[in-house]
């Protein structure tokens, strides 16, 4: 192992941790995991060390590809595909796990080490009832008892995981559950056989923040009561620091730094950890104003100061009383119920500014954005673009309108056609709108790639050769190709790792300054909002609950719902504590 930086782990007992028993529960030493691919052997974990004591909560933090999930899966021999432990040792409860026979590992799984997997949507088998899936875990781990006793136990476990009306719920199927309920069911499965160690892989990162908070709180209480040690795997430093006493930061297959959570946050040693701590979006971060500050002096001459009557820049987008009602097909023909996805929403987007549309899933924010983009017709209300009602546009005018408002979507993996080269993806809108000749279009593509800080050689490559962050840059370049006035960013950075996310946000800030773009920024992540938005619209179940400037919303939230959202940001409590201390 090549460590230039102090790796503090179990062997040195750091101060401030009192709950410590002598024998480590899990001790990983110099673990090597490799995958065999077509191009050769890839080392996913290279000499990782980690120690977990009974009842302790430890978090492994790192971005995707750092090997954190691989490390956790190696412990219970659930490595995907060609993954193999190439060296090192994993000692659990005094027993060496590397090289154990399959049946012995099977005995260990569930009974001694439980797993709460990452994505609640895909981790429950859709064809079996929830109850049956929990019952299975009981039976597999030697639960002695009659059918009725098992049933009762299942209901008890579900209730314990925080599902009301557990008896009835156990008879339902996964698709009848919300994401939060599924996550709770998975926790019930993970804890069913009362394991000594629970591995929580990216705990509810796929869920809304408020739900995420409730579930993590619950998990914390539960594991403390049961005395279960928890190994969190997460990319979210704030969440890790808040939930675990001990952190291990992984980077490129190695644990580059580990120690008590607070110490790592306040005094990171390794350069990677430093970057991670610095770029973690949080409530304390401010609007990105890199280029802003440079141009401030000249701006001052034009822009009025606060308090004065501002010179009225016309709103580039004005949404008035926007409502969208969907008809949901009923149980029998002819029967249908109305579902109001967007309910009487009004907001304006000022030219050159950023408006954040914030809400949890199902709040109607994406539906509203689709209506602004002209992709969905409103049931009532209007969307005005540059003072013209979009609904009144003819087909030809609508085509011209689309040039001026462009979307960037959430999933950088799904929004680029895998069959198209990068050049073709960026050039397509230009060709569609008959902008320039072939040579001018190529020049424009080169210019756009420069703009999003990608080498021009990228244009001959294909999406699958690029990382998530690079793809999102391509998506932005594609959106900017037609020189739009407005860019609608629908969860554009949500799928990215923090460091990449910070880079993209910075890029967006620069581009806005350079090109005078207006952004409609749709997100569920309030921490990001603080970094990019000038004003915020908070939506809940289709309605606008709060609409104010970003600082106002963050410093003096008026509505309870906004406060809940703010409180639910991972790490919020931590910062609060630091401020208080």
């Amino acid at each position, binding site marked *: 192992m090549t460590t230039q930086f102090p790796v503090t782990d179990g062997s040195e007992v750091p101060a401030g941790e009192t709950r410590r028993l002598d024998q480590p529960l899990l001790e990983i030493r110099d673990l090597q995991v490799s995958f065999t691919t077509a191009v050769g052997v890839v080392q996913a974990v290279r000499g990782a060390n980690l120690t977990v004591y009974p009842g302790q909560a430890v978090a492994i933090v790192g971005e995707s590809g750092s090997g954190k999930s691989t490390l956790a899966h190696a412990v*219970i021999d*659930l490595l*995907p*595909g060609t993954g193999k432990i190439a060296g090192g040792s994993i000692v659990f409860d005094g027993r060496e796990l590397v090289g154990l026979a*399959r*049946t012995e590992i*099977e*005995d*260990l*799984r*569930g*009974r001694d080490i*439980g*797993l709460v*997997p*990452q*994505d609640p949507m*895909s*981790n*429950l*088998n*859709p*064809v*079996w009832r929830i109850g049956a899936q929990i019952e*299975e*875990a009981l039976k*597999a*781990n030697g639960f002695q008892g009659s059918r009725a006793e098992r049933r009762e136990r299942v209901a008890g476990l579900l209730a314990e995981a925080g599902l009301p009306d557990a008896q009835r719920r156990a008879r339902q*199927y996964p*698709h009848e559950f919300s994401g939060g309920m599924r996550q709770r069911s*998975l926790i019930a*499965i*993970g804890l*069913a*056989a009362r394991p000594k160690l629970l591995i929580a892989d990216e705990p509810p990162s796929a869920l809304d923040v408020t739900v995420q908070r409730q579930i993590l709180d619950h998990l914390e209480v539960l594991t403390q009561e049961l005395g279960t040690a928890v190994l969190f795997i997460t990319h979210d430093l704030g969440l890790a620091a808040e939930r675990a006493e001990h952190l291990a930061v992984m980077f490129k297959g190695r644990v580059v730094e580990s120690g008590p959570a607070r110490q790592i946050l306040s005094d990171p040693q390794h350069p990677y950890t430093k970057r991670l701590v610095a770029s973690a979006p949080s409530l304390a971060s401010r609007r990105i104003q890199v280029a802003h500050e440079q141009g401030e002096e000249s701006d001052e001459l034009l822009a009025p100061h606060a308090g004065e009557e501002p010179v009225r820049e016309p709103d580039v987008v004005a949404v008035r009383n926007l409502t969208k009602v969907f008809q949901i*097909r*009923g*149980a*029998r*023909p002819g029967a249908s119920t109305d579902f109001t996805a967007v309910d009487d929403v009004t907001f304006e987007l000022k030219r050159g500014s950023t408006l954040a549309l914030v809400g949890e899933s199902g709040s109607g924010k994406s539906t509203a954005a689709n209506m602004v983009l002209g992709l969905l017709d409103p049931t009532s209300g209007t969307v005005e673009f540059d003072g013209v009602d979009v609904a009144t546009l003819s087909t030809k005018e609508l085509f011209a309108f689309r040039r001026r408002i462009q979307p960037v979507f959430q999933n950088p993996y799904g929004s680029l056609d895998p069959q198209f080269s990068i050049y073709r993806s960026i050039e397509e809108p230009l060709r569609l709108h008959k902008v320039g000749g072939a040579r001018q279009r190529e020049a424009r593509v080169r210019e756009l790639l420069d703009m999003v800080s990608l080498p021009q050689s990228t244009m001959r490559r294909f999406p699958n050769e690029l990382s998530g962050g690079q793809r999102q840059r391509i998506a932005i370049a594609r959106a900017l190709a037609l020189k739009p006035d407005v860019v609608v960013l629908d969860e554009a950075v949500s799928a990215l790792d923090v460091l990449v996310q910070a880079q993209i946000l910075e890029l967006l800030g620069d581009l806005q300054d350079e090109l005078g773009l207006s952004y409609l920024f749709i997100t569920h992540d309030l921490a990001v909002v603080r970094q990019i938005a000038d004003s915020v619209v908070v939506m809940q179940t289709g309605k606008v609950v709060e609409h104010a400037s970003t600082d106002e919303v963050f410093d003096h939230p008026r509505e309870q719902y906004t406060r809940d959202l703010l409180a639910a940001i991972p790490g919020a409590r931590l910062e609060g504590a630091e401020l208080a201390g």
Partner: protein
Amino acid sequence: MLWYLGRRLLQVIPVFLGATLLLYALVFLRPGDPVNALGGERGLPEAVQDEIRARYNLDQPFLVQYLLFLRGVFTLDFGVDFRGREILDVMAGAFPVTFQLALMALAIEAIFGVGFGLVAGMRKGGWFDGSVLVMSLFVIAVPTFVIGFVAQLGLGVRLGWFPVTAGRDPDFYSLLMPAIVLGAVSFAYVLRLTRTSVAENLSADYVRTARAKGLQRSQVTGRHVLRNSLIPVVTFLGADLGNLMAGAIVTEGIFNINGVGGTLYDAIVRGENVTVVSLTTVLVLVYIAANLLVDLLYAALDPRIRYA
């Protein structure tokens, strides 16, 4: 669910009417005069021909003929063919044996296709997977009549394991080899479908969750991999029942089975329109019923599918 079933059954009516009309029009438009052909080389006197045409309503316009046919269907009186046999009797003689043959072929392809496919999918890339894939490709590539004759010669004549032909009123044993031949191609498809589906499901998140629970490998395979993998296979099998019945003609010919295929072929050659349309209509109905059954099975296998 009842709503759904009712709606699906109502759909049978337009499909039935459309299919029979189309079939009737097609046979009506066929060139040649079957009545004239009855007389062979010497031909029949004009008066006899007219007499026959009148008896079988062949002198009526197309639409009238079609409506008369429909009346026959609903009163279960299909009339007689040129040789004086009741068409209903002809069908009753042909369908049971073909149906038995098709069901046997379906069972063979389902059991062996799913079984082999499961093992191949679990050990994707292994020697079993490789050899089974090559074998299935071979079966798909070689025409049924070649497989049929080779099996007949090899297993029937040389080795004497199976009766060489089935003949009249065949029993289970004498239909076994024809059923294997008939199901061979679909068996290869089922195998490949199952294999892909199983391999895909093996890497599903819920399978990993099941393993993390501490389930044994056999439990994970049976409860979590197999059931989920069967969903696309069932769709294929359902649609295949119709194909097997209609496609049995070659196999029936090779093994001398008096089933739907042979009867239909004779009727087409002789130009007995009513027999042709009647037999085909029953096949259409079998097809519809099989598809309905598949959709219901689908809902049983996958609770996410709810019909409303």
